[in-house]
Every structure is written in C-alpha cells, then in structure tokens.
C-alpha cells in the first residue's frame, strides 16, 4: 500500500506541472510555514527569555535569541526545594497512576473482547453510560472523602484510574490485532483465560500498551485539578500545583530570590524565573514526544476507527 502510494507520488512528480499547480504548491508551502511559525515562535521566545538576563527581557531586547546568555534563572529554579519535591511527586504519581490504570484497563478490555462472555452487553452499556452522564463535582468529592482517600496520595491516582476511552482502545486492539483462531486453539489445548491473557494477549499488545502508557503519563503529568481538590499537605503536591502557585498566582517565594540584590529583582528576575520554570516543567514531555509521536497518533487513529 505504502509502495503504491510512493509510486503514484513519483508519477505526479514526473508529470510536467502546470503553472496553476505551481502556484497552488507555493500557497500550500506558504500557509504551512505560517502555521509552523505561529506555533513555534512563542516557544522559541520562552526558551530564549529563560536564558537571558532579566533586564534584557523586560526592556524587550530579547526578540528571537537569548541576549547575554546566563543560567542565573535555572540555578535559582534548581535550588528551590518545593520545585524539586513537586517534580519527585509528579514522577511518583505518573508511575503509580499509569501502573494502576493500565491494570484496570486490561482487566476490563480482555473480558469485554470475548464474544461468548455472558453479560458482555450489559457490562459494555454500564461503561458507556458513565461517559454520557456524570454525578458532578460535589458527589464525586464526597465519595473520595467517604472512602477515606481525602488528603492522601491515593486520591490523585485512584479516582482517574478507570478510563472508558482507554478500555475501548484496548478492546478494539485485542479484537482486531489478535487472531481469534489462535485464542480458540489455545482454549482447546486447555489454556485458561488467565493463561491466554498472559501468554498471548499481553505479548501481542506491546504497541497498544505503549500508547496507553503515553496517555496516562501525559495526563498525570499535566493535571492539577484533582490534586488541588484532594490534597492539603505541601509535601504531596505535584509539580503542576507548585507551578500554579508560582506562575499564575504570582507567589514567588522569598527563598527563590533572597540571594540576589534587590535591584535585579526589581528588573524582573521574577519574570525570567517564570520563563525558566515553564521550560523546566514542560521540557521532559516536549523532548520525548518527537520519538513517541508515532504511537500517539496511532492511538488517536484507533480511537477514530471505533467511531
């Protein structure tokens, strides 16, 4: 299929292109370039600003590249204990949350993929209905409270562990990518469901599991709402909550700037610190994603196949 497409592509290229065609191509290139620039410029500016001196940023001398490059802001960021503990917490929540969510997803997806399961339709309906109607914020909060999860780390990972969209993705994968004849043959040979899950389904689901790991890690890394609602103890805060305090609510704490003379502070060290913080907190995902984007796209496409 891919080769066929390539062949038609080269056919196109070999054809003598009309003038209208050339103009059309030029417009396509131009518009795409524009779209790329609109997205890229703010990102480049933020990185450059984070490496520049406060005075240059505030006065608008930083346009594209860093002016008088310095690591001042980064030194301050990495000295900050709250940011480091937030980082550690986020990594912890991402890891544990992903593990739990993945387990729950697979335990739901495999039974739902077995066509002979009595009650399968009912189970599916129960899962789907929960996506159409929700009890709302307060009843949800009260449930977490009644379960005794409030103000514990579990409140960040357990309530979001079940994700119906993920279950549908995994189930579709099992149904389409794993030949049912193979599973049937295993059953005739006396293999139990647990055996089939461990020896056949899981080894053949590597790519889908990678997609789900991604979704979970990105989701957990970027979320702040549950932590804001359910946590009280500063030591448990994930990075996003700490970012919110510093970046949005403007509480640059004194321990971040205490060592620097007041004059520089006035000239906007706070600003540069914020740029550095934006970079430090977003960099892991932005650096990793070009390598994993193939899987991410695959997940989206699988999801659309269902629709």
């Amino acid at each position, binding site marked *: 299929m891919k080769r066929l497409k390539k062949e038609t592509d080269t056919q196109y290229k070999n054809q003598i292109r009309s003038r209208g065609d050339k103009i059309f191509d030029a417009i396509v290139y131009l518009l795409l370039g524009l779209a790329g620039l609109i997205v890229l410029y703010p990102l480049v500016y933020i990185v450059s600003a984070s490496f520049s001196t406060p005075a240059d940023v505030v006065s608008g001398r930083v346009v594209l590249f860093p002016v008088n490059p310095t690591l001042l802001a980064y030194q301050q960021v990495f000295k900050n204990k709250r940011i480091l503990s937030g980082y550690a917490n986020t990594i912890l929540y991402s890891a544990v949350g992903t593990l739990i969510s993945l387990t729950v997803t697979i335990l739901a997806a495999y*039974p739902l993929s077995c066509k002979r399961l009595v009650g399968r339709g009912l189970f599916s309906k129960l899962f789907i209905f929960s996506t159409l109607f929700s009890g709302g914020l307060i009843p949800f909060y009260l449930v977490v409270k009644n379960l005794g999860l409030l103000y514990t780390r579990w409140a960040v990972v357990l309530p979001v562990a079940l994700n119906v969209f993920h279950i549908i993705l995994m189930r579709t994968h099992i149904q389409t990518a794993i030949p049912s004849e193979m599973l049937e043959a295993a059953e005739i040979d006396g293999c139990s469901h647990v055996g089939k899950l461990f020896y056949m389904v899981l080894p053949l689901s590597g790519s889908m599991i990678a997609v789900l790991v991604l979704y979970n890690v990105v989701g957990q890394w970027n979320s702040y709402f549950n932590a804001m609602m359910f946590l009280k103890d500063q030591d448990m805060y994930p990075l996003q909550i700490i*970012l919110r305090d510093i970046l949005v609510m403007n509480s640059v704490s004194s321990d971040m700037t205490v060592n620097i003379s007041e004059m520089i502070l006035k000239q906007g060290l706070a600003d540069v610190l914020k740029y550095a913080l934006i970079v430090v907190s977003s960099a892991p995902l932005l650096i990793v994603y070009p390598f994993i984007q193939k899987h991410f796209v695959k997940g989206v496409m699988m999801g659309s196949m269902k629709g």
Partner: protein
Amino acid sequence: MKTKIRNVNGTNGTKADKKIMRQKMRQRMWQDRQLYIMISIPLIFLFLFSYWPMYGVLISFQKFSPTRGVFGSKWIGLSNFKRFFSTPSATRTITNTFRISLYSLIAGIPFPILLAILLNECRGGRYKKAVQMITYAPYFISTVVMVAILFQLLDPRTGLVNVFLNKLGIGPVSFMTDQSLFRSVYVWSGLWQTTGFNAIIYISALSAIDQELYEAARIDGANRLQKIWYIDLPGILPTFTIMFIMSCGSIMSVGFEKVYLMQNSANLAVSEVLSTYTYKMGLINLDYGYSSAVGLFNSIINTLFIVLVNTISRRTSETSLW
C-alpha cells in the same frame, strides 16, 4: 425463538428446553469464571467513582449536611434549583458558559480541517513532517503552563505582545483583565494549543480515502481545488460529524481548569462559568446541596445536548455515535 430451540435440541417441550438452555448458560459462566473475576476489578472502580456519585446526586434535593449523610439529611424538593435560578448568577454563568463554548466550537471547526488538507496537499516529505511535528507540540503543554505563558506574553508592562504593540504606537492592552477580550484570549490560545493535534484525526480520514477517486478525478481533468472540494471534504464529513457531536456533548461544560486559572476579579463578570461556580459554591462555601444541584443541572443539559445532536445527525446523515 421457540423454533430455534426445538431445532437445537430436537425435543418439543419448551419448558425442558429452557431448563437445558439455562443449565448450559450456567455451565458457560462457570467456565468463564476467571473473566468475571478479572472484570470485577474495573467494575468496582466504575461503581465507586462513576455510579456512586450518580447516586450522590440525590443531595441536590436535600438540605445536605455531611455529618448526617444522604439518609439523615432533610429533603427539600427543588428548593436548591429554585434558589439557583432566582439569583443573578444563574443567567450570568449560563450565558458565559454558552458563549465561551459556542465561540470555541465554531472557531475550532475550520482550522484543524484546513491544516489537515494543507498537510495532505504538501509534497515535500520533510517539510510536511516538520510542520506536523511543530504544530502539535503545544498539545503537550499543561493547562497551568499554558495560562502562565499567556500571563507572561500578554503582560501589559513586560509582555512580548505589548512590547510589540508599543513599538507600533498602540498603547498597552491589558489582555488578561479586559472583559471584552477574555473570550478571545481563551479561545485563540486554545486553538494555538490544539489545532495540530485535532488535525491528526482528519489526516487519517484523508489517508483512508480511496485512491481511485483521485485517479478518476484526474482523468476527468479536475484541478486540485476541485479535488479538495469534491473528494476531500465529503471524505472527511463522517469524521467531522462524529467530532461535532462529541463537542456538542460538552457545550455546557467549559473545561474548569483553564477558565479557573484565567479568572481574576476584573474579568469575573464574563469568566464565571457553571463549572467554576459549582466548585466555588461547593468546595469553598461548603454549600454541598446547592452546588450539587447546579452541577446536576449542568450534567442534564450536557446529556440532553449530546442525545439531541446525535439523533438529528442519525436522521439526516446516518452518522452517529450510537
């Protein structure tokens, strides 16, 4: 059905057949017991975090006190709803929610489709890949960081945008506190963040279009604009319909996270939406019953909307979610 049973067992007594059927079913369920044990774990999660809160919705009809619980609290009928609709907050939050989501729904339609078609038309492989990669990078930026970027770049004194505007001789614009600009800042920053990602689904729809159609169009002498108009756009229509239905389902639920972070006392008149109001009434004022009633109203509207749009779509275009 009855004849079917007879055929299977070769006997006539339907009662006995049913008994055999039931026995067989039980046998099969016993064989599949491992499956039931597996699915019981996700079901526990489902009931705890989805269905228990649905039951908890009952407190909307109560003067709820946490110490007494759902059983002990006093039932007050629709008073909580009446109270909500009698306050000026009701019309204000409902209109705000509706205007913000309608704005982002409509503004969000053309750009992902346009980007997908442009990428599809682009012949330079590397250039195409680079643009694609860049445009969906912002999707990975968290809401908190996104709002922080807005605050930084739009800062009236030091922000990049205002530094530019200053050079052009336009006075500083206070984007984050200006009521008339709130919606635009919200919607366009959202588009900046999600257009590339939302285009993926259309790109995959475009790649699924039958190549023979293009071949036929070429033989008929269609130019590229005509190919886009007569093949590409109809080809992605089913995908578009599904996406549209899904966004209609959330028309009354402007995502809490971003609005809440962008809120300040200056723009509250246009930025207070149902979800932030529910949060404040419930978890800050601790008015559980009342807040839950507002949330329930919101949930019901959402469900109604998605069912309505789905029905209309099924009748008119035969594309639907269910």
